[in-house]
């Protein structure tokens, strides 16, 4: 049986159509902005993942996984640099990715 992740976690997945990284939000929707992500730990993890999977299938979102979260100010953000990169976009192309704006692809 897989080991349960330790500490606060958020759920990261990808949009089926575009592949973009999405975070499972407190409102039950998927968002590009990690600050909107729902966070759980310990016994709350299974319930959060079950809810996310239900919303994933309905919204063409794939491969939901837990990622470690850390609190800054009033919000949680991805803790690991890999997931920070996913939330923002490539550090070497600041003109691309969600670091430009959450809806940069549509601008």
């Amino acid at each position, binding site marked *: 049986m897989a080991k349960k992740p330790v500490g606060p976690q958020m759920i990261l997945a990808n949009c089926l159509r*575009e592949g973009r990284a999405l975070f499972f939000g407190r409102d039950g929707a998927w968002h590009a902005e990690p600050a909107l992500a729902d966070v759980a730990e310990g016994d709350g993890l299974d319930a959060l993942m079950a809810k996310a999977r239900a919303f994933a299938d309905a919204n063409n979102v794939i491969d939901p996984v837990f990622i470690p979260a850390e609190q800054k100010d009033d919000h949680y953000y991805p803790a690991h640099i890999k997931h920070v990169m996913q939330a923002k976009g490539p550090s070497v192309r600041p003109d691309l990715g969600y670091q430009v704006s959450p809806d940069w692809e549509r601008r």
Partner: protein
Amino acid sequence: MYAYDPYDKEIVNTRVEEFRDQVNRRLSGELTEEEFRPLRLMNGLYLQLHAYMLRVAIPYGTLSSVQMRRLALIARKYDKGYGHFTTRQNIQYNWPKLVDTPDILLDLADVEMHAIQTSGNCIRNVTTDQFSGATADEIADPRPYAELIRQWSTFHPEFSFLPRKFKIAITGAPSDRAAVKWHDIGLVVRKNDAGDIGFEVLVGGGMGRTPVIAKTIRDFIPEADLLGYLEAILRVYNEQGRRDNKYKARIKILVEALGSDTFADLVEKEWQTTRHHPIDVPEAEIKRIEAFFAPPPLEVLPEQDPAVDELAANNFLFHAFLKNNVRPHKVPGHVNVTISLKPHGGIPGDATDAQMDLVADLADTYSLGEIRVSHEQNLILPHVARRDLPELYEALSRSGLGTANVGLISDIIACPGLDYCALANARSIPIAQNLAKRFDDITRLQDIGELKVKISGCINSCGHHHAGHIGILGVDRKGEEVYQLLLGGSGAEDASKAQILGPGFDENGIVDAVETVVAVYLGERQDGEKFLETYRRIGADPFKEAVYEAH
């Protein structure tokens, strides 16, 4: 250049429509992600950190200007205006949408390109010397053989689900510019005492977490027996390679476990069993393929050109370009020109759509419409008249493509790293950028001379760090990017594995460490000695002492 026959066209077009159907079924929910993943990977479509990534095959690194313009169009129409040329002579697009990928593949098929054999546990796109057919030092142009291997391996029913991916490289010259000793199979064109063409066959090379230099299992296999012998190697690997552990599944692990002599015996036995039923490639087909790679119709011209000499005497940067980016062609009065995709501060291997269009135009004007991609992530115009160099250099410089650093310390191989890749542990590109900026002075670069820096963002080694004169490996240490420094590798005919020097560095420390290594080299080198020669003569200790004393 090779041109598709009706059979090639049919299989590629059929594959496009098959994939269109698969994408539609995935989007409608008929296929699950688990069912769809292997299908998209068979078409070169990966899911990376920010988006899908489409890897397009450039067989043996040879492109026409028409194909290059199509790559530019795809970058513009479906992506974000650029593409990334890789260490396997391919191109990757970083931002395609799933729904667009069948149309991208259709646009590629229209110019005889595809994304087959760029992913999965099959025989991957064959790679070769970027100067093939245009260099005086080769015994034979390896591209007809590479094309034959492509036709044999594409959709080969027996070898479509190997234990792991399988990479073949081939060189026609004794100077190995294709890193053949770092491949699952390396082929070196040889001539025997009777003057017949054949191949030295090396097996079991590879990078990754277990770097191994390939071993010769046959000194000479006649060209007529090439496919049969390759089939015997693949069959032994397919039957005996491990499938229980993906980290132990490459052929290098099998060859190491059995010993290369035992492995060679098994291949020989298999080959002797099957060689009486040879893979019978019709002579007409061989002639058809060879005709596409006939020597270029170039007029013999004077070796020297007064206008070139005059510009070189008066323009230091052109002089450097001439020295570093230009090498002799096999036809007198012509040269191979390497276009560096390593502008200082830029992203190694990246080219914008406008740059790709420009290279296509320049290829039409100066290089018989032909372009090559090197595994060192540069582009080559293989057939340029020496007298055209001033005009060509001017056009390249105006578009940021005139960097005169080929083979020097800023001509860095770097994988996409953690900026794009889902497998990466650390960023590679910023390290390459910072190193290139640190060594920004062309006089200093030239004084340092040949020095190959290769950077990987994880142990999978797409940045070839094991083969770097200076190799850099990014690792994850408790969520922090740490960079290990390796010295003494080579991807050439004198292949060697780089060795880790000591504890790793942060992203600033690694640049300082490289500068210290260079300083030790400059202090220790003897007349005319290149970095690797000095390292091999004095060993790692002087470098280690200086780097860790300064750290």
